[in-house]
């Protein structure tokens, strides 16, 4: 029945399968697999699709809350945001393709995460991106920054979805492995959420979107004898994004979803037809039979193997109610997209693939899902450095500040976000540059606050505490604008899990995320793992990026970081002990990455976040900034620059010395500003609630930052440093565009 290709050990190895895995395949199949079947196993059992190294540990994450409508396991997670509305979101990486071809890699990353969200019935309403590049002096960095940012903009802008925030870091640990993590947030009606379970037999399986080409078929497998001959050029493993087609696909899918023709729908992401059909059959407890002759093809002479493994973009697979094909087809024709009935659901629980009158694959679907390997890889914990490092107390505070606000990791990201359309859809009520972005729920007064956070240097020093900190900072950023944090998505970026010390980082980080999310009632509803981020044995810092969403009832009661009025009192909320370990100060001023990561007190995070949020919700505070990288003085500078209003401040409420007081990175802290009488009341309430706080200064008429005992610096000077670095760095060599 199968055209036989001998499955040699070399071929198995080329498919990334171990000998033990192949023996398991033989057992499950009861015979030698065909080449197509081997290809299908190779992608379905890959780390990317099966999460085989992390699945066991991910089970420890909290995923439930009364407001969680759909946790991990679907294309994206879903939360209840009231009034019958749902927010649907997920974050995903496109690290490796972006390193090879930054524009297209980042663009298709954006396209992929958007499909994950709109395949569930949501209209995407906001995008975020968390980016990590190598050190600025590395010869590739500038080119990668330019390409990635243009690629994200090129795709997101065309889609008409505002890109409202993100993160950018530079560090030598990413020299050979940049990270491009993109997050998409969508909005849907709770009664119109679409899942991927292909329930029932005899239902048509339809293919919609772009045609299938030989995109992204893994290079290693191409080396096998069968595929050598025809290829005059080395086949690229990078796909080209087509945002125009994706925009049509989005509108067409939403139009089809407004009918009741769909039983199940799923985007074709990594491993395209293979994973979408296997996952839909698996979730629906059904079988799927595909006829590849009907697949719309872009190139001639495509083999079954190529079609099943192609990662061509902008495609979807859906299962319709019988008899609805014509209705669906009319919608896709209107949008000038390909539409084809390529198969049918069955009750066999098998994936059967036919091509040119032959059965080229016939396999039990459970072999691809439930039976996929799950490893408990050995892991080793690394002792975390302890102690608060020494510092030179004689360094002048304000010149250090100027250096810090102009450092690559700390300067304004305006150069980045101005290349993204962040105002399209006319609901961006808090623009990039603040703590969390806020997008209004269209036609209402509700808002969603969105942020992404992680501090890799903390995670390197102490993966568990660093992961807790990432969750805590995301929580804080959402509270700081006045929203209630609801749920998170994570993107776990790590090195090679087959090394026990890396696996140790993964396990510790998952434990940290779990502990923080549990304590903050902040469940994980979706996520993604990106492992093997290593070059020549050098791994990246553990980088568990956290994306989070919160809800505010009334966008008119929202805080921003900008000082708004002169003469207001500034309060520091939280305990300041002057933690300089792993701080920006130590790194940028003393040139050391040293000491313990700042400890995270989750009870304090919760209490302080709720206290601040209540003040904002009550309309009593509209100026708030959480304290993170760079500590209090950096926060005050950002507040002053954003509002173009100066302030004065001094050490208060503690015996901590000036440098650690102003630059320490103790957690669970916020700076707020309010009129003096209001602040008196707030102080009383803080005292009553047992929340550590101190009045550290006030806003003033001069456009300066004045620090008791350290002098004064003009906002213009700070602004020049803060706004200057990025454009100056990027201007050093003009990089011509791709288009």
């Amino acid at each position, binding site marked *: 029945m199968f055209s036989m290709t001998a499955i040699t050990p070399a071929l198995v190895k080329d498919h990334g399968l171990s000998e033990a895995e192949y023996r398991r395949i033989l057992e499950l199949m009861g015979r030698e697999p065909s080449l197509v079947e081997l290809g299908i196993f190779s992608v379905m059992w890959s780390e990317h699709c099966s999460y085989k190294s992390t699945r066991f540990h991910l089970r420890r994450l909290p995923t439930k809350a009364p407001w969680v409508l759909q946790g991990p396991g679907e294309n994206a997670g879903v939360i209840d945001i009231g009034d019958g509305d749902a927010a649907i979101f997920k974050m995903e990486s496109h690290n490796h393709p972006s390193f*090879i071809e930054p524009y297209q890699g980042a663009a298709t990353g954006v396209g992929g995460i958007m499909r994950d969200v709109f395949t569930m019935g949501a209209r995407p309403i906001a995008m975020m991106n968390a980016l990590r590049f190598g050190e600025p002096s590395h010869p590739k960095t500038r080119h990668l920054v330019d390409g990635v940012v243009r690629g994200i903009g090129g795709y997101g802008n065309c889609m008409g979805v505002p890109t409202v925030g993100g993160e950018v870091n530079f560090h030598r640990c990413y020299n050979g492995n940049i990270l491009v993590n993109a997050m998409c947030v969508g909005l849907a009606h709770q009664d119109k959420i679409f899942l991927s379970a292909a329930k029932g037999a005899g239902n048509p399986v339809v293919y919609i979107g772009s045609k299938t*080409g030989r*995109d992204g078929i893994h290079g290693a497998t191409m080396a096998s004898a069968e595929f050598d001959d025809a290829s005059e*050029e080395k086949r*690229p493993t*990078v796909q*080209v994004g087509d945002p125009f087609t994706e925009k049509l696909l989005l509108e067409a899918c939403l139009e089809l979803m407004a009918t009741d023709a769909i039983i199940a729908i799923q985007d074709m992401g990594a491993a395209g037809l293979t994973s979408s059909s296997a996952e839909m059959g698996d979730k629906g407890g059904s079988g799927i039979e595909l006829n590849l002759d009907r697949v719309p093809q872009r190139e001639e002479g495509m083999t079954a193997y190529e079609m099943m493994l192609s990662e*061509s973009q902008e495609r979807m697979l859906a299962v319709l109610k019988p008899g609805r094909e014509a209705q669906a087809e009319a919608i896709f024709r209107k949008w000038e997209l390909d539409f084809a009935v390529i198969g049918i659901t069955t009750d066999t629980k098998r994936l059967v693939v036919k091509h040119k009158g032959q059965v080229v694959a016939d396999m039990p679907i459970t072999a691809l899902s439930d039976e996929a390997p799950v490893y408990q890889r050995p892991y080793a914990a690394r002792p975390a450095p302890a102690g608060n490092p020494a510092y030179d107390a004689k360094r002048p505070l304000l010149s250090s500040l100027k250096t810090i606000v102009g450092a690559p990791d700390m300067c304004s990201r305006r150069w980045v976000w101005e290349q993204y359309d962040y105002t399209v859809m006319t609901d961006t009520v808090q623009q990039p540059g603040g703590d969390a972005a806020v997008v209004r729920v269209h036609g209402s007064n509700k808002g969603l606050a969105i942020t992404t956070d992680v501090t890799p240097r903390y995670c390197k020093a102490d993966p568990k505490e660093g992961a807790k900190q990432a969750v805590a900072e995301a929580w804080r950023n959402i509270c700081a604008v006045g929203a209630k944090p609801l749920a998170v998505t994570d993107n776990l970026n790590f090195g090679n899990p087959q090394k026990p010390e890396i696996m140790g980082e993964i396990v510790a980080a998952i434990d940290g995320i779990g502990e923080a999310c549990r304590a903050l009632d902040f469940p994980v509803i979706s996520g993604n793992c990106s492992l093997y981020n290593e070059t020549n044995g050098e791994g990246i810092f553990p980088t568990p990026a956290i994306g989070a969403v919160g809800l505010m009832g009334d966008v008119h009661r929202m805080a921003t970081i900008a000082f708004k009025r002169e003469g207001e009192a500034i309060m520091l909320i939280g305990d300041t002990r002057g933690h300089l370990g792993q701080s920006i100060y130590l790194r940028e001023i003393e040139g050391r990455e040293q000491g313990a990561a700042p400890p995270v007190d989750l009870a304090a995070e919760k209490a302080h976040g709720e206290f601040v949020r209540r003040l904002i919700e009550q309309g009593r505070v509209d100026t708030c900034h959480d304290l993170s990288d760079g500590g209090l003085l950096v926060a005050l500078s950002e507040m002053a620059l954003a509002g173009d209003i100066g302030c004065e401040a001094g050490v208060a409420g503690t015996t901590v010395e000036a440098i650690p007081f102003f630059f320490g990175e103790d957690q669970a802290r916020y700076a707020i500003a309010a009129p003096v009488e209001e602040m008196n009341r707030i102080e009383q309430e803080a005292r009553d609630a047992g929340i550590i706080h101190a009045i550290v200064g006030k806003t003033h008429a001069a456009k300066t930052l004045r620090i008791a005992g350290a002098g004064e610096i003009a906002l213009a000077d700070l602004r020049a440093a803060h706004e200057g670095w990025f454009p100056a760095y990027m201007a050093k060599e003009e990089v011509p565009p791709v288009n």
Partner: protein
Amino acid sequence: MKARVFVTLKNGVLDPQGKAIGHALNGLGFDSVGEVRQGKVIDLDLHESDAQKARAALTQMCEKLLANTVIEKYEIELR
């Protein structure tokens, strides 16, 4: 010396622009139009009279900057 460099997508790489142009031309009634691919043409003035040297330099320029050899191929024409 003047040189012209063509940078086009490799065969098999999706060309969304070409696809859309072909579609639009068909829509305008140009039925005879089949596949369309779009590329870049870069015209350069070179202060170099040795054709061999010019070609070597252009090859380097293409590899380093003008083409993204992951997805694009290039042709060099001296004139």
